[in-house]
């Protein structure tokens, strides 16, 4: 069975949807608005102002025209078990990607194209350099048909494809509220908000009058309490933004398994749906930001081979935006075939890690306090706070690091605030590395890193292992990988 059998009509060259001609330049024009406005407002003399705006407008016109021409020239089709893409204005480039090389196909629908019934198709290939092939935009019917054809072609060995479809994850909106509320982003925003508020007050910012007139309580507020109020307000705004962002992005999140593929869709305004073949998944990661840990929930992320987009905001790789701790092991088993429990009986790294962590965190504050105490003798007292805090942090860091390595898998956990647990099947390991800095060597420590064919946005590593332990694990894992692995099979 070939892809051509499933894709009647797709083997004819297709162009992008005609409405793209409208959307593409619109998107570009949006990027040009700011420079145009700046050029117009900065130009002093009438003539120069006009000339500046004229040049910009000309540049814009040329770019838009060129883009329009590119859009018109672009053609795509499916033939001979390969996806073909022809592009270029003067120099025509023909790309052909064998369907079995296609890692996954994502459909993305930003809100405006979505209203017009258009879809962006992102085709990820295994090559690291070339990256993705993007068709923006095609009609929804074409996009779905293309994705189905590609998915079928890459898993054509499965005969009973219509039968098995299991829902792995379905996230309710209520859970998404919890996800947004417990993301560390809110904490980060709080810090930024605090900084902004304090600068405002240092700059002599006066609260607006109308607030003062609301009631006499406002008159009683000192500038310090105004600052606190403003910070609290900004934190709340940041928090609400985080919640809204999460809900918008993951609204209606659904992960289903159809034979060898994972299908995922989510998004309220911009709808996104993707297919990832299970065999392409290299590692899974359980993320637990501090707040989420407290409410007994986690998110699950998977890295698949060649998926450059896993690092981007598009959410590629998120297998569950939030789920209860209880449900995590089952999902992990379904996506990478590793049986839980994962986080029990993890081995600690060398206790010397506390010493190294402490020295690392304390050095710069100690130097700063030392220098400052020349000018303000009281500055040295800051160390009374910094030293215990540093020790606490070093201990927390040591406690957060844990690992478990056996013949089948690597489990590695780390992170004080956001606790991350990586899960790597042994047969997905590409190479192992042991690194040691001079400070680590002094204490007989080293870091073990594990490289897979995943995008490596979050490196799997175990920091501050005893050097000998690290070396023996690296050797054993490499040997296991050598025995189980065949180039390409694990990718």
């Amino acid at each position: 069975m070939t892809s051509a059998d499933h894709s009647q009509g797709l083997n004819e060259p297709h162009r992008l949807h005609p409405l793209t001609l409208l959307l593409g330049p619109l998107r570009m024009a949006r990027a040009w608005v700011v420079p145009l406005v700046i050029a117009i407002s900065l130009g002093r003399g009438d003539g120069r102002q006009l000339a500046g705006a004229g040049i910009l407008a000309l540049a814009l016109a040329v770019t838009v025209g060129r883009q329009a021409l590119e859009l018109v020239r672009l053609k795509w089709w499916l033939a001979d078990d390969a996806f073909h893409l022809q592009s270029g204005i003067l120099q025509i480039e023909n790309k052909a990607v064998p369907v079995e090389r296609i890692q996954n196909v994502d459909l993305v629908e930003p809100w405006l194209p979505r209203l017009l019934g258009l879809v962006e198709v992102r085709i990820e290939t295994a090559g690291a350099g070339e990256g993705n092939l993007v068709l923006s935009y095609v009609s929804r019917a074409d996009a779905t048909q293309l994705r189905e054809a590609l998915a079928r072609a890459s898993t054509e060995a499965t005969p009973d494809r219509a039968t098995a479809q299991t829902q792995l994850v379905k996230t309710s909106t209520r859970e998404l509220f919890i996800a947004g509320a417990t993301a560390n982003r809110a904490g980060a925003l709080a810090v930024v908000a605090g900084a902004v508020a304090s600068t405002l007050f240092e700059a002599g910012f006066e609260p607006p009058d109308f607030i003062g007139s609301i009631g006499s309580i406002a008159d009683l507020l000192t500038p310090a309490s105004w600052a606190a109020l403003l910070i609290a307000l900004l934190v709340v705004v940041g928090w609400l933004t985080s919640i809204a962002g999460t809900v918008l992005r993951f609204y209606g999140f659904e992960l289903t398994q159809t034979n060898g593929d994972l299908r995922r869709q989510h998004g309220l305004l911009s709808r996104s749906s993707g297919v990832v073949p299970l065999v392409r998944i290299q590692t899974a990661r359980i993320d637990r930001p501090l707040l989420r840990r407290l409410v007994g929930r986690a998110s699950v992320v998977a890295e698949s081979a060649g998926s450059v987009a896993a690092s981007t905001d598009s959410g590629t790789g998120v297998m569950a935006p939030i789920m209860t701790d209880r449900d995590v092991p089952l999902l992990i088993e379904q996506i990478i075939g590793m049986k839980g429990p994962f986080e029990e009986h993890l081995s600690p790294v060398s206790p010397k890690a506390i010493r190294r962590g402490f020295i690392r965190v304390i050095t710069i504050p100690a130097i700063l306090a030392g220098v400052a105490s020349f000018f303000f003798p009281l500055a040295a007292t800051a160390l009374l706070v910094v030293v215990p805090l540093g020790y606490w942090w070093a201990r927390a860091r040591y406690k957060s690091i844990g690992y478990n390595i056996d013949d089948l898998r690597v489990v590695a956990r780390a992170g004080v605030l956001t606790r991350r647990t990586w899960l790597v099947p042994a047969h997905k390991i590409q190479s192992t590395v042991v690194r040691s800095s001079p400070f680590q060597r002094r204490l007989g420590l080293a870091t073990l890193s594990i490289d897979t064919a995943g995008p490596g946005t979050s490196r799997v590593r175990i920091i501050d292992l005893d050097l000998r332990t690290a070396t023996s694990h690296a050797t054993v894992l490499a040997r296991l990988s050598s025995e189980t692995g065949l180039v390409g099979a694990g990718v």
Partner: protein
Amino acid sequence: MTERQMLDPRIRWVWITGAMIPAAVLALVTLGLAIGRVPLAPAITGAVALALAAIGAGLPGARWKSWSYQLTETELIIRFGVVFKVERWLPRTRIQHVDLIGGPIERSLGLRQLVIYTAGTREADVTVPGLPETVAIALRADLLSWVSAIDPPAMAAGGIAIDPSKPESAPAPDIGSPSDQFLE
């Protein structure tokens, strides 16, 4: 080949030459500044040039000592690093392809680098510098020899694919004669 192998000691000259180029450029700048009687600047650039030259002359010895590689039955192990020490294990079956590279200085000394690629992304390629050309070619053949030991039916089934009945040193892929590697 299971013992640790050192690089060819002549690689130190490649590294020294490489390090001396910026030092020499900076020395020329110093000269220019001195002739132009710019105050203070020649002293600074001169000192930097001297420091660069001293490091460039001193470091390659330690770097060479830190470098070794070892080919076992299942993997290639390389070790290097003076300040940060690195030890890498590359399973033979994970090797995707191998490049043989030679810069002008290396070529004049009869040395080559072997660049080994895995499907990994973060640390996908590993370079072993300072190999005599014949050693580099032999190592490449050895690294790729597992390919010819693959059992095609097992490969199709996606299972473990090394056929133990075939010797480890199976006929190497055609690598051409040493001389036609660098004709381009």
